[in-house]
């Protein structure tokens, strides 16, 4: 605060205004603070001594609060003393949000198990709106801390957001019994889980809108079924050989992100506006089904395809299966190889494309270079404003493609070439050659890094 010497005005400038606010406004301010700051306000002045205890409806605990300790159990005990202190001293008030994060302190000891279970039980109830548990064990294999969500979770009839991460285990019987009718957002970033308990849990959340799954699939051939109410879906399976698959009928889905999972049946994908796909169908039959699914994304505007997907899609010039996406504006591809013919054929199908980002993942194309095209892709003439080439390797084909785009891109504003791995001389030559290409678009800027 400034030091002023203006008499009465001075007094007003330096007054303690905050204490004029009613208690509940002060505790509302404290509810946005990390708990350790909130608790420390008890030292400010006698007025503040008990404020943090009232209306404490948001609890956020983490073992990151404390200095690191190699002895995990000791660190947990320090956390436990803090958490228990808060729980016992706070004035009774329904907890609306709780977050508990233990990433360096959990071990397979009853102190950990009983404490975490008790803390979770004490907040479960109809007032709980958000629960976020991040519980990482010291041991990834059997024998290590593990948290089992209790059936009493169903008492949280108003819970809107649930996030469980780390060493969390679901068995089928419990998963079947858990019902969360108000749940809109579910995040599970966990270890190994079987598909049946996963499906049982998902069927207990009929109003789910956002689902973020990341796990290791225990059984191959399992089919995951998601609620039809979903607007946002992300499923990443960490073990690529799991052979897990997904069945979806999601009429209101707008965002889709999948990795290492095949889609066996999909309906109503026409409202998906943004998608990111990283799958590799293992057989011709599953490839055919997958192509049907990709084609069903008729409303897609923003699409990201990863290496495994594109490897299969861009198999060869005559095998091009890239569906026509009438509304596609933004396309990102991670390519297994660079082939300008395949790329240009692909561009033929995206008439409204505005942004194209290509990442070249190392190899020269196994296919012969074939630079002639029947006609210029219409998006080049009317819509493509930005193109980015990542991972330039200096192949002749890459250069031809860049030149072609510069020559034909009537509305091109920027061409960015980055992650260039060629020797400096060749790099300079390439830059010079590209700079001298007559550009179709007068305000096109070339960035070569």
């Amino acid at each position: 605060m400034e030091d002023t010497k203006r008499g009465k005005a001075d007094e007003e400038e330096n007054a303690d205004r905050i204490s004029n606010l009613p208690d509940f406004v002060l505790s509302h301010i404290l509810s946005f603070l990390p708990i350790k700051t909130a608790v420390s306000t008890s030292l400010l002045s006698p007025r503040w001594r008990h404020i943090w205890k009232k209306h404490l409806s948001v609890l956020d605990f983490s073992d990151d609060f404390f200095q690191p300790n190699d002895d995990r159990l000791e660190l947990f005990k320090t956390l436990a003393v803090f958490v228990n202190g808060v729980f016992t001293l706070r004035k009774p008030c329904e907890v609306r949000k709780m977050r508990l994060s233990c990433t360096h302190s959990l071990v397979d000891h009853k102190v950990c198990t009983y404490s975490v279970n008790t803390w979770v039980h004490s907040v479960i109830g109809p007032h709980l709106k958000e629960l976020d548990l991040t519980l990482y064990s010291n041991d990834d294999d059997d024998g290590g801390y593990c948290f089992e969500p209790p059936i009493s979770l169903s008492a949280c009839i108003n819970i809107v957001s649930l996030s469980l991460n780390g060493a969390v285990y679901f068995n089928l019987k419990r998963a079947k019994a858990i019902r969360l009718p108000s749940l809109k957002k579910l995040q599970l970033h966990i270890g190994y889980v079987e598909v049946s308990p996963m499906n049982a849990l998902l069927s207990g959340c009929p109003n789910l809108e956002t689902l973020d799954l990341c796990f290791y699939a225990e059984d191959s051939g399992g089919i995951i079924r998601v609620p039809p109410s979903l607007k946002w879906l992300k499923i990443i399976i960490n073990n690529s050989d799991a052979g897990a698959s997904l069945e979806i009928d999601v009429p209101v889905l707008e965002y889709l992100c999948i990795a290492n999972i095949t889609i066996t049946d999909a309906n109503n994908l026409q409202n998906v506006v943004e998608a990111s796909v990283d799958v590799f169908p293992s057989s011709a039959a599953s490839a055919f089904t997958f192509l049907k699914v990709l084609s069903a994304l008729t409303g897609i505007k923003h699409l990201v395809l990863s290496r495994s997907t594109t490897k299969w899609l861009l198999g060869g010039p005559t095998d091009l299966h890239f569906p026509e996406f009438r509304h596609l504006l933004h396309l990102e591809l991670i390519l297994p190889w660079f082939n300008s013919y395949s790329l240009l054929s692909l561009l033929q199908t995206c008439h409204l494309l505005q942004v194209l980002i290509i990442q070249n993942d190392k190899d020269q194309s196994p296919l012969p270079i074939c630079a002639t095209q029947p006609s210029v892709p219409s998006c080049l003439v009317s819509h493509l404003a930005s193109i980015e080439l990542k991972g330039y390797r200096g192949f002749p084909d890459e250069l031809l493609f860049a030149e072609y785009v510069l020559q034909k891109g009537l509305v091109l504003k920027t061409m960015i070439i980055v992650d260039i791995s060629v020797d400096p001389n060749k790099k300079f030559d390439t830059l010079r050659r590209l700079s001298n290409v007559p550009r179709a678009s007068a305000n096109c800027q070339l960035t070569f890094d």
Partner: protein
Amino acid sequence: MAEEKSQASSSKMLTLKASDGVLFEVELNIAKEMKTVQAYIDDCEDIETIPIPNVLGKHLAIVIEYIKKTNEEYDAEFEKQWNMDDLQLLLLAANYLNISGLQECLCKAIAKRIENKSPEYVRKVFNIENDHSPEEEAKLRKEYKWAFEGVDKD
């Protein structure tokens, strides 16, 4: 204040008089966002000038602007413009006028500025007089030892 174009829903204008005498003409639907003012209107339909004795003209102007423009983007930038003194006075105004959205925005803003800070810093920022005696303070620190033990320094 320049007169705003009246909205289709309501053409009735109301005058708010700040503590330093500054007058503001606002549309009825803007004024209604201030529940305290709404209470005035409920009690007395024909009222045209409402006194706001606890709020200075400069802060009332900010409050009215907030009500007109509030949205996610505006709220995110809003709090950055004010110093701690203004934030507190605005919160007192929002509290008196009973505007829940603005109160929420300001509580978050104030919390952000004292996050992870020590009690000494917070006292300075709010001008809170520490009327604990040294013995009381020592006793408190001991009582709350568990809250400070092993906690990372600011």
